[in-house]
């Protein structure tokens, strides 16, 4: 805990803030940086980091929230699956509240009698499968590169144990593909609706994949990337490093999170993942649409543990809630305050879109920590 508190020291924060103010003094155009990860969005909101930045520095929330980018069609598919008899779906907590296209969430399906169980780790699903051999146990696997290795281990363990009643509904996605998609999007390239001067790169994801995968964007798109930890001082320091790169006309990959991230990442975890998973040709992201080579599925060799194969699943066309701006928020084109549903129809208790469900979602972070900044007042003061 001591080592965590060191990265939350308000005194050092004020020193960093003063330096940021000094080094941004001359620039009329301002600085616009995207923090890719929901973990950063959460830290920025929770610690009130924007109060420490000058108005010329703007942080734009990116799509790095696994629950947020999961398309409605996948939720629908999971609900249809768990409504079959004999199926037990093991899922992480946040996912249970995301509304599907009929407004039905896994939580609602559970209340209606479906066997949905909340788990804390992929291995909990293995334990369930072993304890209840009469049920087909499906792990609803989601997440970026950080959560993929535990799923890989669960699949390998299931193979070793010869489990016949365990499968994975795989929704693991890849960070670099999403960043590239944002940089290539018409919003950025053609319409100029979004200007990005650099990225705060992922913390935990980078501990697995390393800092090397980002060098392509930094060079190809001439955007600086600074990989940063999730503590508030990490974020402030990364902002200062990005400002310096912009001021110097540099576009490099820098690693603020050196205490955990190495150039090559975690070779062991990467090997585990490569053994079990392969790239999908394309995968739908909420907000970004179809993104080529941006997600994983189980290799043929582990095909018997693939829920999509075992249960012949296919995604049906799904409908977003009318008016929901999650897609635009995830691309950084809109802020939650630009959405008419925000704070009226859509709150954490009654989420209309995924960005209001996960604590890492931009809408949830705005609502929970920042809505006093909204003007005019949106909450009824009856």
């Amino acid at each position: 805990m001591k080592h965590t508190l060191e990265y939350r020291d308000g005194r050092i924060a004020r020193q960093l803030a003063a330096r940021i103010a000094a080094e941004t003094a001359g620039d009329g155009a301002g600085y616009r940086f995207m923090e890719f990860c929901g973990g950063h969005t959460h830290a920025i909101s929770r610690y009130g980091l924007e109060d420490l930045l000058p108005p010329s520095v703007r942080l734009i929330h990116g799509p790095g929230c696994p629950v947020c980018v999961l398309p409605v069609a996948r939720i629908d598919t999971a609900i249809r699956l768990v409504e079959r008899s004999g199926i037990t779906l093991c899922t992480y907590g946040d996912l249970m509240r995301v509304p599907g296209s009929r407004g039905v969430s896994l939580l609602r399906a559970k209340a209606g009698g479906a066997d949905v169980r909340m788990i804390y780790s992929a291995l909990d699903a293995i334990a369930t499968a072993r304890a209840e051999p009469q049920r087909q146990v499906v792990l609803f696997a989601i997440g970026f590169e950080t959560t993929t290795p535990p799923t890989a281990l669960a699949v390998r363990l299931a193979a070793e144990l010869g489990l016949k009643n365990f499968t994975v509904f795989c929704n693991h996605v890849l960070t670099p593909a999403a960043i590239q998609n944002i940089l290539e999007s018409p919003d950025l390239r053609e319409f100029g609706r979004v200007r990005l001067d650099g990225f705060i790169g992922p913390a935990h994801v980078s501990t697995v994949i390393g800092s090397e995968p980002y060098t392509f964007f930094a060079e190809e798109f001439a955007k600086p990337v600074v990989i940063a930890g999730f503590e508030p001082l990490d974020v402030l320091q990364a902002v200062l490093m990005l400002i310096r790169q912009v001021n110097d006309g540099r576009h490099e990959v820098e690693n603020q999170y050196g205490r955990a991230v190495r150039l090559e990442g975690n070779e062991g975890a990467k090997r585990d993942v490569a053994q079990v998973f392969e790239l999908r040709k394309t995968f739908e992201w909420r907000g970004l649409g179809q993104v080529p080579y941006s997600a994983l599925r189980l290799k043929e060799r582990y095909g018997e543990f693939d829920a999509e194969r075992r249960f012949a699943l296919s995604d049906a066309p799904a409908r977003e809630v009318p008016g929901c701006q999650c897609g635009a928020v995830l691309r950084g084109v809109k802020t939650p305050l630009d959405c008419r549903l925000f704070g009226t129809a859509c709150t954490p208790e009654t989420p209309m879109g995924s960005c209001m469900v996960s604590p890492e979602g931009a809408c949830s972070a705005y609502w929970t920590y920042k809505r006093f900044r909204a003007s005019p007042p949106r909450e009824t003061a009856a």
Partner: protein
Amino acid sequence: MSRRVFPALDLRAGRVDLSHGAGGRAMAQLIGQLFHPAFDNEWLRRGNDQAAFDVDGGRMVMTTDGYVISPLFFPGGDIGSLAVHGTINDIAMAGASPRYLSASFILEEGFPLAELERIVRSMGEAARAAGTVVVTGDTKVVERGKADGVFICTTGIGVVPQGIEISVERVRPGDQIILSGSLGDHGVAVMSRRHDLQFETDIVSDSAPLHELVRDIVAAGGPAVHAMRDPTRGGLAATLNEIAQQAGAGMRIREAAIPVKPAVAAACELLGLDPLCVANEGKLVAFVARAAAAGVLGAMRAHPLGQDAAIIGEVVADAQRFVQMTTDFGGERMVDWLAGEQLPRIC
């Protein structure tokens, strides 16, 4: 009735069965041999289905609460002591002194009598220690699988002395917000013993009766004590938001002033929880007029259950009724209600 008719319960290896709730001999045996010795008092001894008692001058305060906590035993307490403390505290928050309790037990078939006895004894001890008595009760048994061991409902009656009016509508801008001690001990202690979460910690629940601390607060602050509440489920965040809504005002608090034990902070970090949203069972938050705040704080710190008390912020005029916090880091943020359920069955 003689021992010959009612042989001794097997409190070592026996289990609750459906006959213990059926109204026949087995139930009388359970009440006579397990509940009565634990709660023993003149009202129970009379054996009526109700208790009649005198109350002295003042207004009566009544509250009721159900306890479904899992696990039943946790570091620093159990469902029995919690069922006494929780109800006493709800009475005490009105400035009342708690007098009489009722206890209603819903037992699951198969529950070990030894554990039931442990719970009931702990409950009796907690009631006596707080100067209250359990004067009436009820027992029901449901089939295996229809409950989870033991659920307890307690109702409490207390008396507020004349002239004391402690209620949320008296909260107004300028009131100082005083917290009696560190946050999150109960929630973290309970979580550390959950089957699916178990982790090592020295933290024990803060479960305790607060009526004596309340007595000292009222003695020190008198009419300047506007409202009090114990931040149980949903933690301090829920309590402040509730009061902000009910009082029609906003709150400004300072994170640096809020006591949280390092071990609680560490556990919350690990589990991704906010200590402001974690349950407490032995803390209160008082809203006191500014002029009397220092005196009340001194009185709280002089009591063992308030030795870490601190002024954590104040009530402000705000039509939007927002609870805002200056973070340790120097920024501003909202303190919101918890969305959904952080952890079910915490009390």
